[in-house]
């Protein structure tokens, strides 16, 4: 194998005058050919034609001290040797045009000469494989008497370095367990997903979409992505989390994008808005499918241009935020029905991670029980453990079909908290578990029916007394009315949905009027329905 060195002519360090004093000075390119244990068979010298005289001197000197070395001149023009873009492209062109014969020659790229920019470019080209082989770095001796100095050959193939490789492995592992909250999860699909999310979190600032049922841990995961990015210096600002289901009407616009004082009734002060608060940080929009169309439009512009218009303002403001969106809805279906902007979906649907329900990763239940126990112990200040029989009983139930875990990890968290609180001396016994199983079964059973009960929906608005006097049939009608109004962006919108058949037969429509009349019958008004919801969540 022949050894070929590629070196930029050092127009400063290789230039030590025409006189004989130059032999007393360390000249990096020449020093490379002076070592007793390194033989450069060919030196590819890269230089601007303007430096031809220096190149000739260096070539002659090398031929004298190292007759085995052939020096080849390569003219490269660097109009501005400190401009990264041009230097890189000039060197890239050289590398692409060069005929590397890797089967018979090994290559050393000298990174001691040239501007720092050129050195970085050579490093990058070597790392990217455009310049095959290794790097060589030269340095002068401490005492000037040995002119050759030292050299170091650096192999950029990181996998060859045990220490770096193991450290990288460790950091990578730390990163993924970090995202998993330190829980040793077993579900292969989940683990693989988290592993990729770790890569994406560190390498990309693009939006991330997390889907999955309620309680699957979307906001926890967003928090951890934020922590990981912050730890790795990817962002400096804060984490701003908001559940879009709590944002309605004017409030939604102003909460997200801010408003000017006097923009609407009640806007007594300037409000920066959540997007501005997340400047330089991370914005987590949970239940993003609940955003109104207007807010979606503004959000899309804010993501794409980093600029948006606060409510009631005539001047745009900017905010550079990273975005994570969460949803438990089918956004594709929403976009097909026109309830979610297709272009916004395309923008946030770059990295999509579906968090499985607890049921779907039941093998992770046990490590999560451990995690919750430890958490509870930390908070309560005393160690909480299961006894053996109790643990077996709880696990058996947890895996059984009867355990639906409808609120997923939220259910688990509540369950452990309850058992921990009831555990005398920190010991969870079989009887504590038995009681807890009863409680969980009751909750899931009633939860399932409760959610479908109209009474559950109307009671907050009309009160328990009035509910008691209403027929079930009337309760169903009212709950439908309320739900439709809550999902609508305006009274007219609600009217179009409620009177979708009858309105087509009428000559003139006043949808909002009909809605208002209906609501009045129950002493309700449209705005109340939305505020009530805000206050509750």
């Amino acid at each position, binding site marked *: 194998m022949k050894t070929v060195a590629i070196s930029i002519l050092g127009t400063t360090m290789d230039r030590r005058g025409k006189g*004989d*004093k130059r*032999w*007393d000075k360390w000249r990096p390119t020449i020093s490379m*050919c*002076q*070592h*007793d*244990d*390194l*033989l450069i068979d060919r030196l590819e010298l890269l230089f601007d034609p303007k430096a031809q005289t220096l190149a000739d001197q260096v070539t002659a*000197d090398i031929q*004298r*001290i*190292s*007759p*085995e070395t052939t020096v080849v001149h390569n003219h490269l023009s660097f109009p501005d040797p400190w401009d990264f873009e041009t230097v890189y492209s000039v060197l890239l062109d050289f590398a692409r045009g060069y005929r590397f014969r890797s089967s018979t020659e090994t290559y050393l790229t000298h990174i001691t000469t040239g501007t720092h920019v050129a050195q970085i470019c050579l490093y990058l080209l070597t790392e990217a494989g455009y310049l095959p082989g290794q790097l060589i770095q030269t340095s002068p001796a401490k*005492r*000037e*008497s040995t*002119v*050759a100095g030292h050299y170091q050959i650096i192999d950029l193939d990181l996998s060859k370095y045990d220490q770096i490789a193991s450290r990288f492995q460790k950091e990578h592992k730390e990163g993924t367990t970090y995202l998993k909250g330190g829980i040793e999860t077993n579900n292969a699909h989940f683990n693989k997903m988290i592993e990729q999310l770790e890569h994406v979190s560190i390498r990309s600032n693009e939006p991330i979409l997390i889907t999955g049922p309620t309680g699957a841990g979307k906001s926890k995961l967003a928090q951890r992505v934020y922590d990981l990015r912050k730890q790795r210096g990817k962002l400096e600002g804060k984490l701003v989390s908001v559940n879009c289901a709590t944002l309605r009407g004017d409030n939604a616009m102003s909460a997200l994008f801010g408003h000017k004082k006097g923009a609407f009734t009640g806007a007594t002060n300037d409000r920066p808005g959540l997007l501005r608060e997340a400047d330089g940080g991370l914005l987590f929009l949970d239940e993003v499918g609940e955003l109104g169309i207007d807010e979606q439009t503004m959000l899309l512009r804010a993501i794409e241009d980093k600029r948006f218009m606060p409510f009631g303002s005539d001047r745009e403001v900017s905010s550079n935020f990273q975005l994570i969106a969460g949803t438990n809805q089918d956004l594709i279906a929403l976009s097909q029905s026109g309830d979610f902007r297709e272009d916004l979906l395309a923008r946030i649907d770059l990295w999509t991670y579906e968090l499985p329900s607890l049921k779907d990763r039941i093998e992770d239940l046990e490590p999560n029980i451990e995690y919750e126990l430890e958490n509870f112990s930390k908070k309560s200040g005393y160690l909480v453990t299961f006894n053996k029989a109790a643990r077996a009983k709880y696990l058996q139930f947890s895996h059984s079909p009867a355990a639906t875990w409808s609120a997923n990890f939220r259910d688990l968290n509540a369950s452990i908290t309850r058992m921990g609180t009831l555990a005398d001396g920190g010991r969870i016994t079989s009887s504590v578990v038995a009681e807890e199983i009863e409680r969980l079964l009751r909750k899931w059973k009633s939860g399932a029916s409760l959610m479908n009960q109209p009474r559950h929906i109307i009671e907050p608005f009309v009160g328990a007394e009035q509910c008691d006097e209403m027929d079930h049939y009337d309760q169903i009608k009212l709950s439908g009315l309320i739900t439709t109004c809550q999902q609508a962006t305006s009274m007219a919108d609600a009217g179009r949905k409620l009177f979708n058949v009858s309105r087509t037969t009428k000559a003139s429509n006043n949808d909002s009027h009909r809605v208002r009349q209906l609501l009045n019958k129950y002493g309700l008004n449209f705005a109340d329905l939305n505020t009530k919801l805000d206050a509750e969540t």
Partner: protein
Amino acid sequence: MNTVESGISTDVVIDGAQGEGGGQVFRTSLSLAMCLGKSVRIENIRAGRAKPGLLRQHLTCLRAAQTICNAKVIGDDLGSTEVVFVPGTVKAGEYHFQIGSAGSTTLVFQTVLLPLLLADEVSELYLEGGTHNGMSPSYDFIVECFLPVLQSLGCRVETSLEQVGFYPAGGGAWRARIYPMNAASGIDKVDLVTRGGQQAELAMAMSSKIPEHVTQRELTHIQQRCRWSESVLRQRLVKSSGPGNIVSLQVNMGNITEVFECVGERNLSAEKVASRAITQMNRYLRAGVPVGEYLADQLLLPMVLGSGGKFRTLNPSMHLLTNIDVIRMMSRKSITAEKIEEDCWEISVTGNSE
């Protein structure tokens, strides 16, 4: 590729790590292999050194040896720790060896000299590179000390210096015309047990491209310490590719001329350079032996390949002991080193010629 899985069986296997464990073992093995026509495998080359295996200077000697005898070589790579050298017939002729600053022309010369003396035609060597680099005996040592002794043994070598080459710029050049030995008479027996009185001395301070006062100070220092007359002081300002300086003290003891040298370095005062050469010379003068340290190294091969003989020298250096070991492994001659008194040893070589 550090080891050679050649499986070729050679006449001799030399452990390159023995003795001084460096280039000397290697060069002596090559010279003897060529002269005796024996194949040799040198293992563990420079084992235990910070950078084990062949360095460029060794590779240069190996290539030169290969050139003059058309040898088969395995393992001639930088860093190689095992070399197999199967010599062919040594061919007299014109040879041009270019040696980089990391090597030395005199070491290459030493490697090929004996084989070419034993060839059947005149050889012309043209050597380019360092001539006075301080890492090996200088051209002046070869010409003033070593070759006159060889001549007294019946060998004829003529040299001419074209240009001095210092480290690091090199650029020196010299020629050597090597006449073949008369096959019938061979190299005479060495007899250097006693030495005569000091008949003449010479102090030479040579420099190129450095201030003149350096050589002047060196000579002044020598004159003061050795009480030598001004007429034996020589200032030689030479033309060379790069800067350099050497002090050379020559003493003629009647039957032999010895040379003691020190090369000037940065951060080393002119006086110190002169002192170092004087220290070596004084030791030699005190010891009363005819053969100095470096000549002893080089006399062994002519004795082994010729009619043997004996000489007295200083306490043997590691190089000398290593040479003795290698010779014992490669030749049938018997070689002894006997201490006569402190700093006086007698080395003798006996036995039939090969």
